[in-house]
């Protein structure tokens, strides 16, 4: 064939251009890091303590965003993650106060599983779109958290719980970093290399085709919503451990950062495309931006505007041009 060379060359070039857009998150992460390192070095940006703080601050977003990657890949959305995190922080703290850390962990996980099951049931059995199900659940979870806590913070006195869930560190390394790595590795392998992950991507990429191929798409959607709520509860447990208390405000508004992290990382809001590694970098990038803007001494109002602008720019660059 005479034109093999040209098609191959075009293929490599095309793959490079595609990769460029797909990999914008990594390029962007490095670019922002370098800019901050050059401009904010005198304010302690590169100080190891500051860098580890970024990890501490973004671990909860990262854990929720890993689960959100599955939800978005399946073509669904979960807006209740922030509120569920807040509620779980409260149930954990209350259970620890009554029955000790082990009961607390169980209570926290049970909170997530219960809400996820309810979300999944409403979405797949009753047929309410997950956008509405989880929007309503956002209010319900927050309301329950305020109600059972009497809107006050509930202290956690167990030092071992606090060490494991968010507060501790091994040498200089925060325990939260290990949690991110564990969830990241598991999430990545499950999405890329297991039948479940493939079914999630197929369900979001073409629901009819998935069903015709013998996939029970309702079951897949149910499961991703349960996973998402459980991960949100874990994030709430980390908040509780780090701050040694449970309170309903914890996690408030996190859903937006979580979705932004996943989308920045290259996960499609429309389903069928998702990457856990990208999501983690997306979460870290949001943490990086927050940190840098604070070090720059911007006011909160200016931070909000700058952060929004950077996120829009990154997502716009990652769009495939028609």
């Amino acid at each position, binding site marked *: 064939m005479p034109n093999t060379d040209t098609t191959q060359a075009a293929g490599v070039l095309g793959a490079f251009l595609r990769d460029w857009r797909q990999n914008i998150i990594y390029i962007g992460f490095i670019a922002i890091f370098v800019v901050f390192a050059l401009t904010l070095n005198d304010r302690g940006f590169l100080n190891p303590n500051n860098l580890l703080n970024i990890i501490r601050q973004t671990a909860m977003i990262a854990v929720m965003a890993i689960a959100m990657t599955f939800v978005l890949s399946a073509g669904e959305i979960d807006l209740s993650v922030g509120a569920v995190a807040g509620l779980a922080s409260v149930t954990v703290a209350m259970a620890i106060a009554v029955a000790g850390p082990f009961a607390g962990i169980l209570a926290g996980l049970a909170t997530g599983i219960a809400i996820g099951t309810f979300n999944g049931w409403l979405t797949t059995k009753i047929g309410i779109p997950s956008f509405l199900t989880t929007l309503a659940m956002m209010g319900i979870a927050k309301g329950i958290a305020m109600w059972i806590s009497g809107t006050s913070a509930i202290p956690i006195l167990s030092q071992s719980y606090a060490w494991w869930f968010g507060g501790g560190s091994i040498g200089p390394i925060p325990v939260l970093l290990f949690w991110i790595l564990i969830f990241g590795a598991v999430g990545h*392998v499950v999405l*890329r*290399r*297991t*039948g479940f*992950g*493939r*079914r999630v*991507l*197929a369900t*979001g*990429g*073409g629901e*009819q*085709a*998935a*069903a*015709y*191929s*013998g*996939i029970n798409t309702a079951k897949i959607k149910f499961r991703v919503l349960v996973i998402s709520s459980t991960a949100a509860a874990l994030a709430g447990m980390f908040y509780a451990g780090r701050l040694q208390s449970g309170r309903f405000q914890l996690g408030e508004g996190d859903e937006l950062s979580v979705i932004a992290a996943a989308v920045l990382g290259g996960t*499609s809001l429309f*389903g*069928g*495309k998702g990457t856990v590694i990208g999501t983690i970098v997306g979460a870290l990038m949001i943490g990086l931006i927050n940190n840098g803007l604070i070090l720059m001494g911007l006011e909160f109002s200016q931070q909000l505007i700058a952060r929004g602008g950077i996120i829009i720019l990154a997502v716009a660059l990652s769009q495939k041009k028609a």
Partner: protein
Amino acid sequence: MSTVAVRMTGISKNFGGVKALENVNFEVLAGEVHALLGGNGAGKSTILKVLNGVHVPSAGTIEVVGVPLTIHTPEASRAAGIAMNYQEMSLVPTLTVAQNVFLTREAKSGGLIDDKEAERKAAELFAMLGVDVDPRAIVDDLGAGQKQLTEIAKAISQNARILVLDEPSTALAVSDVDRLFTFLRKLKKQGVAIIYVSHRMDEIARIADRATILRDGKHVITADIGDLPIDTMIEHIVGKRSLGLADIERSDAVRGDIGLELRNVSGRNKPDNISLTIHKGEVVGLAGLLGSGRTSLAKLVAGIEPLVSGEIRINDRPVRFRRPGDAIAAGVALVPEARATQGIIASHSVSDNLTLAALDDLSKAGFVIAAKARAATDAQIERLSIKTAGRDHAVSTLSGGNQQKVVIGKWLAVDPDVLVLDEPTAGIDIGSKSEIIRLVRELAASGKAILMISSELSELLTACDRIVVMADGHAYDDFPRAALDDPAEANTDITHRLQAAERRLQIAIQEALAAGQEVSHAQH
């Protein structure tokens, strides 16, 4: 005598009140290629969907290699050894070719999915088929032919005992069809039963051992392919039309000025170098199979697809369309193929749908004037005799025929000079069909130039003054309607005359296909 691979007995399937299948028997032997034939709405896809578990039969039994199939789900049918290609419906666009081929049957190593292994196995399959598809490509990036090959690979990768191929060749190049046939013969020798659906009679004659013909949801005949010359096949497929279309009277069109003229028009892919003139008052039909370029031509005229070369002239003035709005402004209206998604907004009222295209005319300073909109709506409801409980009822509550009238009415409200109708009667009951056809004739008589696409030849023959036969993006014949009448049948009743004309048109389509293939053979 070979063993029976599939025995479907007394299968009926009702959708609401519509009988899609009525007491159909269908038997396929191991080691044969069995063609399943029939016109549109004959029940071919319904019976296949019953076989592979997408539809549950209303009555009847299915046996697969002697074992009754009692659970009707896609999983159960697949477990019984039935594999089918679904005309692109079973491919997930965001996954790769290899991932699609082995979806739910992924190759694993150490409990984890091994995509490299899947890619290797997919490459082997494509090598066996002798075709060139990249297993690592994302399905969304593939052309129609490559997607079809992926579908076929997916079906055959299941090592099924019964392989169902529904129109597997529509988007394939001639050489790929040849390779597919070679492969099917191999499978046949291994004792696989193959059910082959196609509208291409020449293909059927080449590959099939036996054929079953369905018509209007009923079994007509099962016979050896040697006993079914092409014209006999066509006769069985066309059959004796039930009432409806035949009683529409034909009268010669009064031809006015030229409404639409195409000069050597080509699209990105199809159509290829089409020239066509439609006078006002005239209905011109496009006949041809799926993939012949009819819909692409319609989209070109309606400004949906870009013109690559050639010239479109409306009312004898050259026009250039960048978007559908340009075509509408120039006086072209398209009644699109997919009524539900492209034609109507189902949850909106009859009134909202009918006025959608004419909102500017009905508005003042941006506000829609309710009285004007009501009057315009009522005028269309009256003119088209749309049966609705009221103008404020949702279009979804209307029957298919009345929904289509709403689409037509939407365009009549802007008074177009050129009306393009793509499959205007798809999914409509026979009574409403003849109503729509009558409407098409009336609209032409009122001075519109009409281009009509239909896969139902009897409809084209009833509605059109001229019929252009298309295949593979080219126009082959341009018949005045009268030229398709059979002089030998001139004195019989109108039903017979229509059938005779339909047979002639069928043959013309098959000839155009053959001519198209010779052309592309010559090019290879």
